[in-house]
Each structure stands twice: as C-alpha cells, then as structure tokens.
C-alpha cells in the first residue's frame, strides 16, 4: 500500500514535536550529568567546556537550543489547543512556534561564536 499523503503543516508540527521531545529525552540526562561534574569533578567539566568551544560543538548546541525552543513553543500551542477555546489559526501558530524557536536558537548561536 502506498504511504498515505501526510504532507500538511500540522502533521509536520507533530513530527517535529516528537523528534524534538525524543532528542531532549536523550540529551538532558547527559546535560545534567555534566552539570553534576561541577561539584564532583571540576577538572572533567573544564575539559568538556574546552571541547565545547569547537565550532562543530557550537553548531550542535544551536541544534539543541532549537529543539528545546521548538518543543516548548510547540507544546504550549498544543496545550492551548487542548485547554483554551478553539482557535482556527493552528497552522499559523505552529509556524510561529518554529519561527520563534529559530530566532532564539540563532541568537544563541550568534552570541556563542
């Protein structure tokens, strides 16, 4: 059977939300572990912070900030959809969430480099 046509904005918003959610679930444990090193093993943290100065790592950070922002704003859209009176502007709101997330993550990236 041919894969069903899914190419519409809200379906992409769903995929983005799931991918970013899973990305965060994978990343955050590592993030918290690293922060814990500030207390238990500062030398290791400093080593990692040096590594984090590399451009490629900066780019990866940009990706992570984007995932976090897009998941947060996309998630707020879903919560509003579910708990506030209905709005017909869902596609606009989803696009807006991506836009704001891009703005935030690019600003972060430009400040970081």
């Amino acid at each position, binding site marked *: *059977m*041919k*894969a*069903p*046509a*899914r190419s*519409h904005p*809200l*379906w992409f918003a*769903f995929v983005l939300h799931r991918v970013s959610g899973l990305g965060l679930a994978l990343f955050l444990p590592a993030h918290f572990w690293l922060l814990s090193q500030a207390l238990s093993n500062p030398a290791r943290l400093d080593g990692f912070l040096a590594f984090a100065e590399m451009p490629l790592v900066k780019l990866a950070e940009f990706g992570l900030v984007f995932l976090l922002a897009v998941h947060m704003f996309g998630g707020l859209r*879903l919560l509003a*959809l*579910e*708990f506030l009176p*209905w709005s017909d502007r*869902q596609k606009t709101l989803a696009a807006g969430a991506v836009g704001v997330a891009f703005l935030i993550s690019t600003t972060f990236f430009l400040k970081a480099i």
Partner: protein
Amino acid sequence: MTAAQETLDVTVHRGTTRGARYDRFEVPAHESQTVLDVVSWIQQFADPTLSYRFACRVGMCGSCAMMVNGTPRWTCRTHIKKVAPDGKLLIEPLRNLPVIKDLAADMDPFFDKWTAAEAQHHPSQTRHDPIEAIDPTDATRAEADLGVECINCAICYAACDTVAGNPDYLGPAALQRAWTLLNDSRDDGRQSILDAVSGTGGCHNCHSMGSCAQYCPNELNPMRAIAGLKRETAKSFFKGKRNA
C-alpha cells in the same frame, strides 16, 4: 490532463487483507471523469468481478471512499484531473480497516467504535412530550452544528496515524459525533459520553496531527471536536464528577 492523453493507467488493489495483488487496467479518459467513474468502467467493461461500494454518487451517503494515489477521498466527487493530472492512478481500499474484497473495506470496526464512543442519541424526552424549541444562534448549538454534516465515510479514520498506531483508538469520526451529541440540548447522555471518550481508546490519544481535518471531504474539523472533548473530560475529571 492533456488532450493527447486518451487512456488512464489505473492500478487497482485486488483481494483481501490476507492476500492482495495489484491489477492494471487501461481506462478511456473523459472530460469531467471521477475516480468512481473509472472504477465503475473497470467493473462494467474490463472485469465484472471487481468489488467496490457506492450508492448516491453525489457525496451524500459516504460509501464510496477509497485511497486514491495514497490519499483517502470520496471517489464519486473526486475528479481525475485534480488528483491524477498525469493519468496515473493507484486505487486501494480505505486504510486502517480490514478489507472484505478488492476496494470494499470492512466498516465494522469503524461503526463498532462509533457505538463504543456513545455516539448515538440518548433521548431526553418521549414522543408524548411537546417538541422542544432549539435556538440556532445559541453558542452550544452552533458548536453542535459544526459536526452534523458528517457522512460517515471514514476518510478521517483512514487518514489518522493515531488510528494506524493504536487499534483501540476510537478515531476522529466517532469522537466528533460524541462531541456533537454532548453539545446537543436534546441529548441526555452527557455522563455516559464523557466516560466513553475518556477511556483507554479515548480522545486523549489524539496528537492533533490534523489529518482528519485536512482530508474531510465536507471540510469538518474533528480535531477541533476532539480538543473540545479533551477540555470537557478534563474539566469533569477535576470537578471529581468522573466516576472512574
């Protein structure tokens, strides 16, 4: 469709869920031809054993829905030139349902879920009561009116990936009808509807992908109805009314 194109290249699903194959047919192209016209031509002139379903041919009965080039559509009102400008068609039975034969999907699970969602009228009065006046401008009535044009074609059910991933999920059509009844002042089943749609297969499975609204041929919005059910079930849960 170009003038030079005199035949359509049509691939049709044959067989059942247990064993399927695909047959190819060359079908004469015509002006203003619908997908249902093509399927009927095949059955009448090429292979009388082809099974499919239709009744009204004008988008009222909801029986002719099929997958057309991967998209669920009401075939009686889908023009070839709109969905297959290159003259190539792949016609399959509705997704997310068992197949009886060829293009006829088994609608039983779809209507069983309709019942499971309590999406049936719960009378509040008898025939001996005077007829109740309904104010069409009332906001609750207006919300109910948004869903009444559903023709039970199961296109939303076929379009939904949550249905595909969870066989217990009641699906957009049944939930939308439940929402319509919840907003209908003549319906007396409020608590049983809320209980039915808040269970394991209920409205909270929905991820708001919106394929139901995207493909509904009558341009209804089951996603909006499901969001309404999520709100009402949550409200009723926090008020402690839910007796689960």
